[in-house]
C-alpha cells in the first residue's frame, strides 16, 4: 500500500542497489514508462473495481507482474496493451474472489465520493456517470473505458480483454447503447 513517504527519504539496502533482479526492463526505462502510464492505469482500475484503494494495490501488482514477465515489446503500444491486459486479469481475479467471499467485497461506490474541489454540477455529473457505469457488466465498463478514455483501437481492446476483434464491434455497440440509455441525457451542454 502506498504511503506518503518520499521514496528518496528511504534508506535503501545497499545490496539492492548493487545488483538488480533480472527484469527485462532497466530502471530508467521503467520509470519513464511508469510516469506515462500509471495515472491512466489507476483511473482504469478505479473504474473497473469501483474502489480507489483496491485500484492502488492492483496498480502496484500490475507493474510488478509486468516487470516479472519475461517479454519483449515491439513498441509502446504493445507494452501498454500488455500492462492493461495484466491489470484487467487482476481485476477479474479480485472480482471472482470477492464473489466467492462476499464479506470481502469492496464497497464499489467508493469513487462516488466527491472531492472537495468539485462544483455541484460536476459532482452530480460524476455521480450520475458512476452510477450508470456500475450498472454495466465489468467487461462492458472495461471496453468503454478503453475505447473512449484511453482511445484504444478495436484491435487493442480485443487484445487487452482477450476477445476476438470481430466480436468486439457488436459488443462495444451494445455497451455504448446501454450506457447512453442509462445516462439518458445529453451530457456536455448542447449535445444531442
Amino acid at each position, binding site marked *: 500500500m*502506498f504511503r506518503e513517504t518520499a521514496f528518496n527519504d*528511504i534508506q535503501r539496502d545497499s545490496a539492492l542497489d548493487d545488483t538488480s533482479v533480472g527484469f527485462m526492463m532497466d530502471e530508467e526505462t521503467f520509470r519513464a514508462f511508469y510516469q506515462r502510464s500509471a*495515472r491512466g492505469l489507476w483511473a482504469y482500475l478505479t473504474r473497473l473495481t469501483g474502489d480507489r484503494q483496491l485500484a492502488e494495490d492492483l496498480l502496484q501488482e500490475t507493474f510488478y507482474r509486468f516487470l516479472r514477465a519475461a517479454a519483449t515489446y515491439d513498441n509502446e503500444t504493445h507494452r501498454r496493451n500488455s500492462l492493461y491486459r495484466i491489470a484487467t486479469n487482476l481485476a477479474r481475479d479480485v472480482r471472482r474472489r470477492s464473489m466467492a467471499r462476499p464479506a470481502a467485497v469492496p464497497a464499489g461506490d467508493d469513487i462516488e465520493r466527491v472531492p472537495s474541489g468539485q462544483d455541484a454540477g460536476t459532482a452530480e*455529473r460524476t455521480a450520475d456517470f458512476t452510477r450508470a457505469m456500475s450498472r454495466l457488466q465489468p467487461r462492458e465498463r472495461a471496453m468503454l473505458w478503453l475505447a473512449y*478514455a484511453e482511445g484504444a483501437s478495436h484491435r487493442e481492446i480485443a487484445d487487452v480483454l482477450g476477445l476476438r476483434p470481430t466480436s468486439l464491434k457488436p459488443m462495444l*455497440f451494445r455497451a*455504448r447503447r446501454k450506457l*447512453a440509455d442509462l445516462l439518458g441525457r445529453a451530457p*456536455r451542454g448542447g449535445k444531442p
Partner: protein
Amino acid sequence: MKPVDCELESEVLAAVLQNRWPHQVDAGLRTHVAVCAICADVAAIAGVIDDAREELRLQAKVPDSGRVWWLAQMRARREAAQAAGRPITVAQAIAFACAVGLLGACFGATSAWFHSSLRHAASSVAALRFQSILPVAFVAGHAALLLAMATILLVIPAAVCLAILRE
C-alpha cells in the same frame, strides 16, 4: 442485419474529444448525428467518459516510480529465494519421513513388548474366527516389516503435505 458501426463514428469521437462538438463542427456532421443512432451514442457518452477520465486522473495518487521499482526488486528477490529453497524443503520432509519409518521398523523388530502385543492381538482376531480373511500367521511373522511399511505409507504423504502447506 442491424449496423453496429458507422464510418463517421471516429470523426464524431474526435470532435468530442477535441472539444469541437457541437458548435465547431460542420453542419453536415451535426445533421448526420441527429439521424444516426450510433454516432448519437458516441457523441453522448464519449464526452462524459473523457470528463470522468480527466477528473480521475487529477485525483490519482499513484506511488512514486522509484518506490514501485524498489518494492518490485525486493519482492522478486524474496520470491527467487523461496523458489530456490522449495526443493530443499521437500527433500528434508522425505528424509524425515524415511528416518521415522526406519526407527519404527527397528522398534518393531527389537521390541519384545511389541511382539507380545501383536501376538495377543492376533490371537484375539483368531478367536473371532476371521482366520480365512486375515492371515494371522503371516502378520505375526512379518510384523516389523508391515509396521515399517505402514509407517512410511502414512508418514511420508503427511510430511510432504505439511511441507507444501508451509510453503
